[in-house]
């Protein structure tokens, strides 16, 4: 038995890096400290894809890595408009290799932000984002707002490590010295902890942000008595709390990114933060989902200039979510092949988009079988990043952390290597054709 400390969790955007666990016979046997129930589940492991597979006559048949990789390369090389999607539950090194492959084959490269916090990125492109690292919040925040987010279920360590419950330099008493405001359309485990719970009519967060902004800028007179089902008195109460806070933070989740006005909800949330900043120090942060969804956006931005949904078909970047984003490409039947890596559109894309995924050739790279496997023509199992191989990831606050390798594998291949080998095969095909 070996105890390993400072293990980094590769599950959600919290990227907790203080996990202590025990390993015996190349297996994680016990999580001693640090992980939440969701992270524990990941670290303890699940059933794996046992072998690379190629679909023949409707059935997936086991094959070698070489065969699967060759087949994948053929699919991509032939494609006039391939989609290379996923990239959020893997490391930056794999993302980098994927972007290079997409550039070379003239594909569209997109990550899971497209169905998660893509709207937050679009909003940042409209107005920027005043934010900070999670430790700042831990040490300083006296007013915390969760808006359209339910960390008690989705990011179980978030409040304890970084926000409402944590203790820091100016917050030595933990939640005693802090106030918590929760805004949601329904009561949740998180809202039950709140000092103030604002229950907003579903899909109307936008109006609430605008009303709060008008109040914070001194124009409460124009605001009607009720906004999106919220009494004006409650808006005034929260506005007062905002004005009195020394250091405030708004965390927001998919409750606002996935509802009607989407990125414009976030633009308005950021505009609310800017208005709040006239009264005290204020920041805002998206509750990013996958552990490295942020990292892909970082790598894609420094390499192509744009964060996701990047169409490289002309050899340079054309970026236009709503056009170059995965759901649109599939729903409009705009792409003729797909490489799906470290993600599961089968479970997380609208059915209307999956109908096209069912039609086109699909390559799946993942440690685990999932609904996407049902559509896959080539399945390539990968080593698990953060358990069987190391690599860089970015936490939800853009802090880079390096995943550690804690178990050995003599069979499974890391994502980065799989992508590079596919790329090498593509080059070989091109050379062959050139001859």
């Amino acid at each position: 038995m070996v105890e390993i400390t400072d293990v980094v969790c590769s599950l959600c955007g919290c990227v907790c890096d203080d996990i202590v666990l025990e390993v015996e016979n190349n297996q994680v046997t016990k999580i001693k400290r640090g992980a939440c129930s969701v992270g524990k589940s990941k670290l303890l492991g699940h059933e794996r894809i046992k072998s690379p597979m190629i679909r023949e006559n409707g059935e997936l048949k086991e094959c070698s890595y070489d065969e699967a990789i060759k087949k994948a390369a053929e699919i991509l090389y032939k494609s006039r408009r391939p989609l290379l999607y996923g990239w959020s539950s893997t490391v930056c090194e794999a993302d980098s290799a994927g972007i290079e492959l997409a550039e070379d084959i003239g594909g569209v490269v997109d990550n899971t932000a497209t169905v998660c916090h893509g709207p937050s990125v679009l909003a940042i492109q409209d107005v920027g984002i005043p934010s900070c690292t999670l430790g700042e919040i831990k040490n300083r925040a006296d007013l915390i707002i969760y808006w359209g987010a339910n960390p008690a279920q989705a990011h179980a360590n978030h409040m304890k490590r970084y926000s409402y419950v944590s203790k820091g330099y100016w917050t030595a008493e933990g939640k005693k010295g802090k106030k918590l405001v929760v805004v949601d359309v329904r009561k949740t485990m998180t809202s039950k902890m709140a000092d103030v719970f604002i229950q907003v009519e579903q899909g109307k967060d936008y109006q609430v942000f605008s009303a709060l902004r008008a109040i914070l800028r001194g124009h409460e007179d124009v605001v009607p008595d009720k906004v999106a089902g919220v009494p004006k008195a409650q808006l005034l109460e929260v506005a007062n709390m905002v004005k009195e806070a020394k250091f405030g933070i708004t965390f927001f989740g998919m409750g606002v990114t996935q509802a009607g006005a989407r990125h414009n909800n976030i633009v308005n949330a950021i505009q609310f933060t800017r208005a709040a900043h006239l009264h005290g120090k204020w920041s805002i942060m998206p509750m990013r989902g996958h552990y490295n969804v942020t990292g892909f956006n970082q790598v894609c931005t420094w390499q192509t200039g744009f964060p996701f949904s990047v169409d490289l078909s002309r050899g340079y970047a054309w970026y236009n979510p709503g056009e170059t984003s995965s759901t649109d490409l599939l729903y409009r039947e705009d792409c003729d092949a797909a490489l799906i890596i470290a993600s599961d559109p089968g479970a997380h894309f609208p059915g209307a988009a999956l109908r096209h995924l069912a039609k086109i050739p699909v390559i799946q790279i993942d440690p685990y079988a999932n609904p996407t496997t049902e559509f896959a023509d080539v399945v390539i199992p990968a080593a698990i990043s953060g358990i069987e191989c190391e690599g860089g990831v970015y936490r939800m606050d853009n802090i880079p952390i390096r995943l550690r390798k804690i178990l050995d594998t003599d069979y499974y291949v890391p994502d980065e290597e799989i992508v590079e080998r596919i790329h090498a095969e593509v080059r070989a095909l091109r050379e062959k054709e050139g001859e």
Partner: protein
Amino acid sequence: MQTITLKLKDAVRSGIATVPVEVESLTPDQLFGKSEAELKAVKVWWGNREENTGDLFDVSVEGDAASADEVKIVMEGDLTRVKRIGSGMKAGEIEARGDVDMHCGALMEGGRIVVKGNANCWAGREMRGGELIIEGDAGDNLCAMYRGEMKGMTGGKVTVGGDVGECICQYMAGGEILIKGNANRLAGLNMSGGKITIEGDAELFGPDMTGGEIVMNGKVLEMMPSFKFLETATIDGVEYKKYLGDFAMGEKKAKGTLYVK
């Protein structure tokens, strides 16, 4: 006058996917003076490959033109996956006979485009001049800015016969647009100049407006909560309620005007 007819070949739409063709290279100003053979050799993008226009379209040319103004391009066939029709065009006319895909008339500077059908998203994006007529519906982000820009449409005239999608005319700074049908939410978002007239119904129009005007002739489904009612005003004999906003931007910037019937 010269008429260039480009009919998309059926084969282009017959694969497992309907990969869009992108035709910003096919505008009157760029095709003016080209022989039929030269015209057929003009490159257009189809997915990750460049193809000859003549390989994707049946091309026919009639008449002569003394300038680009005298060139009219007629586009036929199934245009639902033909993007960037008339994008960046400076002169002449394009008539698209059917529904067109995204970015029709984007960055347009002059001339005229008539779409005899619906236009997908981003029609008239960053339009600077000329006239765009969409006889059917127009999609989201009509006449809006490109991602991250703080200027959308700055000039020109647009008419939409039917309904329009979300966030039309975002960051509009100039020009005029008439919507004969309904507008989905957030029309005129961040608008700083120009004029939008909506004949049909709309909701939550004009958020973060700092200038320009929106005239609402149809039913208001929901007003933004951050506009101030000023007075009753009469335009061409019709009485309107006049609002000022958006006060979410603060008093100094709240210089946009709404006229609501």
